[in-house]
């Protein structure tokens, strides 16, 4: 059984859905962050697989961009979470619902 690109796509889809499910179902901000990372990396996987399949370099280049942006985002996001935790002693997003209309 050879591993065709379809497998990679399927794996990426599964990872993406797990990530999305984590965002929807978990309340801890840190865990939700990890879920976001999971989704981003699912996408990275599709980029790399497609890049190799089509024999172009752009797939890998895009991944680097995504990684850089994700790293920056994590820095900001973690800082926010730490700041919130210091004020409220909790990282549960359900308790951070001040923007309710």
């Amino acid at each position, binding site marked *: 059984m050879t591993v065709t690109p379809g497998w990679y796509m399927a794996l990426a889809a599964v990872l993406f859905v797990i990530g*999305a499910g984590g965002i*929807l179902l978990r309340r801890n901000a840190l865990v939700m962050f990890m879920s976001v990372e999971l989704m981003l990396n699912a996408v990275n996987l599709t980029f790399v697989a497609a890049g190799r399949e089509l024999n172009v370099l752009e797939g890998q280049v895009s991944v680097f961009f995504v990684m850089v942006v994700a790293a920056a985002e994590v820095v900001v996001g973690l800082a926010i979470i730490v700041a919130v935790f210091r004020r409220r002693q909790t990282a549960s997003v359900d308790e*951070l619902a001040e923007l*309710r*209309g």
Partner: protein
Amino acid sequence: MELSLSLIVLLPLAGMLVLFGFGKRIGEPGAGIIATLAVVGSFVIAGVLALDFFNGDGPVETVRWFEWLPAFGVEAELRWDQLSALMTLVVTGVGSLIHLYSIGYMHGDPGFGRFFTYLNLFITSMLILVLANNFALLFVGWELVGLSSYLLISFWFERDTAAAAGKKAFIVNRVGDVGFIVALMLIFSVFGSLGFDTVFEGARRGELTVGMATAIALLLLVGAAGKSAQLPLYVWLPDAMEGPTPVSALIHAATMVTAGVYMVARTGAIFELAPIAAATVAIVGGATALFAATIAIAQRDIKRVLAYSTISQLGYMFMGVGAAAYVAGVFHLMTHAFFKALLFLGAGSVIHGMSDEQDMHKMGGLARKMPITFATMAIAWLAISGIPPFAGFWSKDEILAVVFERGGLWQVLWGVGLVTALLTAFYMTRMMWLTFFGEARWEDGVEPHESPRLMTIPLVVLAGLSVVGGLVNTPFKTTLEHFLDPVFEAVHLAHAPDGSLAWILAAVSVAAGIIGIGAAALRYRSRVPAEGGLGWRLLGNGYYIDDLYAGVFARGGKLGAAWLAFRLDVRGIDGAVEGIGSLTRRAGGWLRPLQTGFVRSYGLAIIAGAVGLLAWFLSRGAL
């Protein structure tokens, strides 16, 4: 030439500026003397400059001050021709006498300097009006005389009635000015210029259709009716009597109110192309003449008699210029300036002598107490009643004769004019009898006395002019017509009949005058008859036209304004603005529940949206 012509306007202007700055400090009588000298100076210069015209070889001169509105082909330019020369002489001549008289009349008034500032402002404005060489400058003068009229009517502004009268005059004039402005726009749209020469030559060359000429002429008539107090815009003039009497004499009898007549005469080239509009001018004039004369019969206030009389006489002038008898109209303008200024100044002298009493029923028997005032006013009385050889006879008779000569329906107008002449003689005689004859009906403490020399000298001079002023244009020697000939040479003038018909018409109008005088003399000879009853009340209140206007226009305007302010503005405009605001708030209220504040639900929305988009693309086979 250039300098001296400019000086005619600049002298009163300088006088006005000096008095504006230092009038109060100069005080009495210095301020009056400065103002009088400025106007006398203008008169002398105008007289010298007009000599060429009298010799019959004067060219039309123009003086360009500066380029004003190049886009309209308009320059600040004065025009010196026979018509403007005549108007200038009348304005500055009568103006000088009235300035002199005012030094005596305004004696002791705290606003002495202010009064002469305004008077000089008026003379300046009126000279700009008559000397302008284009419609734009004419309009500037037109508005400036309106301003000075307003300032002088409400001169004693502490009195509510005077302040109200000033406002009334200003607002009613503004109604007329709308017509004038629209007329100027039409003129500019047709000729591309507002210069007199361009416009009138263009009109002669046929650049004006009859319809356009009629529209322009009728709109000019609206303006003229406002300024010259013709139906239906005459209502401001009787109230204008709230101003000091010299003002009534100068502005509201002799000069400013004749601006409409001057304007129609000046634009004769346009009215010539619009016979319907010209006939309308004559009809408005005739109707006004008769209408105002009937009201004048029943007035008790001596100045209001003269005010309605002025409206009536202005009606004659309109009748004349409407019948294309421009010379006759301007001629009556001139003689009327003499005898009506005299009547007003005489009335002022009477009021002065009677300690500010204006009700004729409280006068009587003043002939012996005020001999000079009486003698001079008697001359004016005969002049306005149309008794030859006094001035009013010649000019009024010429207008009536021309109107009769036009034939057809014009002869109806002649009949109206004749009845008006009879009524004029009647109410003037009534005024003379109530004031000067019969028993004394003075209130206690009133000691009538003749006015000082300063006031009687102008009366005597004007009386002299009222006697001989008519002789400048008699059927035997038409000096004035020759004088004005160059101005109207391109216009077809209507002429008075010759021969026996002229004699018959003259005899008829003299007879009308004598019947009027006789009837009034009989009625008021021995004692003052009761002037009650419905008819007297109706006439005395001027047919209640003021109340009608107050009820319809003033109240209508107020209701309209109230509706706009409290209905349309509050409910409509504010309502729309507030409605948009509250609609937005309410829409926000509906949409608020979407924002739960839970990150999960936002995430779900994003994912649902992404899945939805994906499904849509897939269903279209786009992937």
